[in-house]
């Protein structure tokens, strides 16, 4: 239960805390000692990492995820443009072979602004809630959101420029995302307009893909420029209320990335690639309180850490089904 509390607190912006000595299982200390003395294993990992750095292997899982994300968005486009009617509508609300679906944050904005709830919207909201709860909540972000993909490409550019010391990442206080969520909810209720939808890059991009481009894409472009030149992945990390909504949904999801302490040698490769590295705080030496730790609610289940880990100490887990990967 305290793990869920920590996971939620970190989702809302609290910095991960260092566990007190008495919170840590005593056998863990022995494991750390054992690992420190395993110099052959450490040497092997070092060689492997050096090789990886010299010949960057393709991130296969990332490419698969991109393919899924593009397919989902393409399904919206072809459903309309080719009239195959599989997935009608856009990211904010749609019908999948006739079944109502509504983005949870968009539905929330409408309910707060309009103050009536139509049955179709309720059906769509419940369907999507159950679906993304099963799939991990913020899984929406990395596997479906069209802005996420553009932001990933912008991030690659940002990292290249940062490597050449041309740009520097300016982090923000993560609590600001919770404030944004509250303010946008309050603005919808007070003004009676779906205020957040005006600037939602997810909605704007989805509509632009399906119905054609417009002025609104300038806003998306500005966000990407901000992320390339000023602050790495700023929108997804510090601003997006959709991400926070899905994070809350996924906090108790059966689909998790799980950390295994016994095989981890704390190289920190996972934290380098993570969109939300605070969820991987547990992989730092001395932070894990158990042998197997579920990664927190802010995790988008993108799987980049799973792929980056040289010792396979991070795996996808579907509770009740065991290891997925």
């Amino acid at each position, binding site marked *: 239960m305290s793990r869920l509390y920590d996971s939620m607190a970190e989702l809302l912006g609290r910095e991960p805390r260092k566990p007190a000595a008495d919170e840590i299982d005593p056998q863990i200390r022995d494991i750390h000692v054992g690992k420190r003395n395993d110099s052959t294993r450490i040497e092997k990992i070092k060689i492997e990492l050096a090789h990886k750095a010299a010949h960057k292997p393709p991130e296969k899982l990332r490419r698969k995820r991109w393919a899924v994300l593009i397919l989902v968005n393409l399904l919206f486009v072809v*459903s*309309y443009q080719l009239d195959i009617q599989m997935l*009608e*509508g*856009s990211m*904010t*609300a*749609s*019908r999948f072979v006739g079944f*109502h679906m*509504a*983005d949870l944050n*968009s*539905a929330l904005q*409408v309910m707060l*602004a*309009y*103050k*009536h709830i*139509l049955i*179709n*919207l309720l059906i*769509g909201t419940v369907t999507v809630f159950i679906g993304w709860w099963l799939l991990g909540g913020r899984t929406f972000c990395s596997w479906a959101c069209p802005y996420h993909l553009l932001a990933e490409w912008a991030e690659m550019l940002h990292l290249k420029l940062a490597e050449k010391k041309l740009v520097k990442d*300016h*982090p*923000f*206080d993560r609590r*600001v995302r919770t*404030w*944004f969520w509250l*303010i*946008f909810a309050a*603005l919808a209720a007070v*003004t*009676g*307009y*779906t*205020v*957040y*939808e*005006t*600037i939602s890059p997810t*909605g*704007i991009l989805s*509509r632009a893909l*399906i*119905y054609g481009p*417009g*002025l*609104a894409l*300038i*806003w998306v472009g500005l966000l990407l420029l901000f992320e390339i030149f000023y602050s790495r992945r*700023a929108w997804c990390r*510090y*601003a997006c209320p959709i991400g926070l909504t899905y994070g809350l949904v996924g906090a108790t999801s059966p689909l998790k990335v799980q950390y295994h302490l016994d095989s981890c040698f704390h190289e920190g490769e996972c934290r380098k690639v993570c969109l939300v590295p605070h969820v991987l705080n547990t992989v730092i030496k001395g932070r894990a309180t158990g042998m197997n730790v579920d990664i927190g609610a802010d995790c988008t289940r993108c799987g980049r850490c799973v792929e980056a880990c040289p010792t396979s100490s991070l795996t996808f887990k579907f509770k009740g089904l065991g290891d997925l990967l």
Partner: protein
Amino acid sequence: MAVRSKRPVKPQARRKFLRTVVMGVGLIGVTLLGYIPVLGRWAARLRPPGALPEQQFLASCIKCGQCVQVCPVEAISLADLDEGFGVGTPYIDARAQACDFSCDGLQCVLACPTGALTHEINYPHETDMGIAKVVRPDLCLAVQGRGFSGQARGAAFTGMLRYDAVDRWNPIPVSEHPYELELCDLCMRQCPIEIRLAQCEAGTPPSGDERQCPPQHAIRLEPLDAGDGITRMQPVILDGCVGCGVCEMICPVEPAVIVIDGTESRGMGA
């Protein structure tokens, strides 16, 4: 607490905090700019059938575009960012493509997941999108006693209408349906309400459904006597008008004699 407040704040942490405040205030500020076009009513749009009064419509529309997708004549477009909080909401540019109710069953209303297009209506005559207004009677061909022959809006016009006599189910481009009229009566001739009334009077209501029959006329041509012996008529809008915009679309003169005012019936009036 007293001890904590004495601890010096690291300059890096202070900068991060200030940066966050600036970003937060900035983003909310930029977002609220979206209020301006809405409050200023920069764009008084004609909305699809069944649209709630403007304020409620903007509140309840989830900006998904499902109404756009089901319209057989593709009359509906989505608003852009220059309409502020209205971004992504559907509207109809009647001059380019009006709603001619060729779906019969109000498909956009059925598609709407939030009830922004109210589900309480079922038939074209129950809609209240706006009202047609004869704003330039002096340009009207009928007022001038003139006829019309050819393509109503020229060869390049892409707008579509359903002509029951040509194809009961599929709309065709207006440019493929030239007219030959001794006195121009296009606005009344193509009015979806008048077409339905005529079908009902002939004993053949649309889909054989009596409930499709409008209770009132929407437009009439009244004789106009200028004392010069020329047969003239003028269009008069009646209570049955629902504001679909077909008269505005089909009017062959430039600019159109009739335009739809979508503001009165939908609470957008000043």
